[in-house]
């Protein structure tokens, strides 16, 4: 892919690659999978060059496309596993990141399976990234009020998911 070797993409990689990698590893739990995400994200950056330049905050743009791409990978993998009737899914490709890996993927896959992705996205920014609601609004490109509404809905749905667990363990 010619544009991937262009100096300006390499320049952007040196500035933003580490945050994309860190984010993907956090969500996917595997260094190798995270590196694949980095490659794919910068392919998209190269293709969307003009749009990227016009972003007020390239960092928030990259947070978002990395998050959504990882969500897609997780859902795809989960669906493949479901079709193969294998639960839990097999180990991710490559060595798992310490403390994460399969467990992280299982949790994420389960949430994504049961809660709409736009709610999951906001919830990850809020509970995992510890962003405040203004930051989330800027990242997602919506109003703070919408962020608040999505968080409330996520909480309600997550609590509904948690209740059977609590009852079972009581």
């Amino acid at each position, binding site marked *: 892919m010619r544009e991937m070797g262009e*100096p300006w993409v390499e320049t952007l990689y040196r500035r933003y690659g580490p945050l994309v990698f860190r984010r993907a*590893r956090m969500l996917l739990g595997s260094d190798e999978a995270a590196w694949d995400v980095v490659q794919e994200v910068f392919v998209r950056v190269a293709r969307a060059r003009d749009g990227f330049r016009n972003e007020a905050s390239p960092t928030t743009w990259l947070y978002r496309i990395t998050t959504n791409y990882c969500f897609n990978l997780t859902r795809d993998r989960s669906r493949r596993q479901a079709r193969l009737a294998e639960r839990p899914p097999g180990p991710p490709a490559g060595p798992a990141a310490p403390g994460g890996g399969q467990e992280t993927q299982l949790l994420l896959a389960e949430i994504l399976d049961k809660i709409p992705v736009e709610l999951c996205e906001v919830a990850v920014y809020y509970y995992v990234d510890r962003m405040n609601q203004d930051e989330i609004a800027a990242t997602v490109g919506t109003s703070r009020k919408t962020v608040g509404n999505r968080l409330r809905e996520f909480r309600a749905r997550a609590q509904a998911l948690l209740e059977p667990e609590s009852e079972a363990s009581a």
Partner: protein
Amino acid sequence: MIAIKLDRSDAEDGCLSDLALDQLLTSENSGSLTEQARRTHLAQCAACTARLGELERDAADLLAARPHLAPSPGGPRARRAPRFIAGTLTLAAAAAAIALYRPATTPSEPAASDVRLKGSPIDVEVFARDANGRVTPLLAGGVAHAGDGLRFRLTAHRPGYAGLVSVDGAGRAMSYGPQGGRLVPLAVAAPALLDGSVVLDGVLGRERLFAFLCRDRLETDRLVRAVEAAVEARPPRSPSAADLGLDCALGTFWFTKVPAP
């Protein structure tokens, strides 16, 4: 087994998010907090300072292991657990050195100005000559070898007097130019090579460069002393312009020095 702590509120921790810290590291002055607000918080928050240092070290590790986008066999070793650990989803907020890594522009990069972020008063470009005499641009966050010769090109975005100070992996500050003991005048948007070159010594690790753009034609030794004092006062954190007590703006650049091949 989902166990998410759902009772978080915005006011709960008060620490900077990774997004805010990433925006500091990428020299992005956008988002809900101004750069000054972030710096003010960092100056008072050990957790955020530590987290920033962690992010910075992780970035250096990644770029040392993967200096280019082209796939390579074997990934960088994960040194730290990801923050999204099943269930607890805890805060690991925060952060250290404000070495705002800024990508260098290169002669073969006509579009490089496209990615220069607003507000940087002075940009640094670094060119490395290896043992075979080959000269390549060194990008911010990149890897240089002990024994490499470096030259520096500075571009000012407002008029002033410029100089360059390095802090090596051992925390030692030294002038990288100009020679002659005093800063050199820079015209706006006119890239200028600093005179002379620097041969990298054997002190390995992360090396930070501070490009100064000052209103007065100060002595380079004064910049070195100011950086030394700031580094000693706050070892894990890179000094900001405000820490130095000089009427100068700062541009920053860092790279990792590794043994000669």
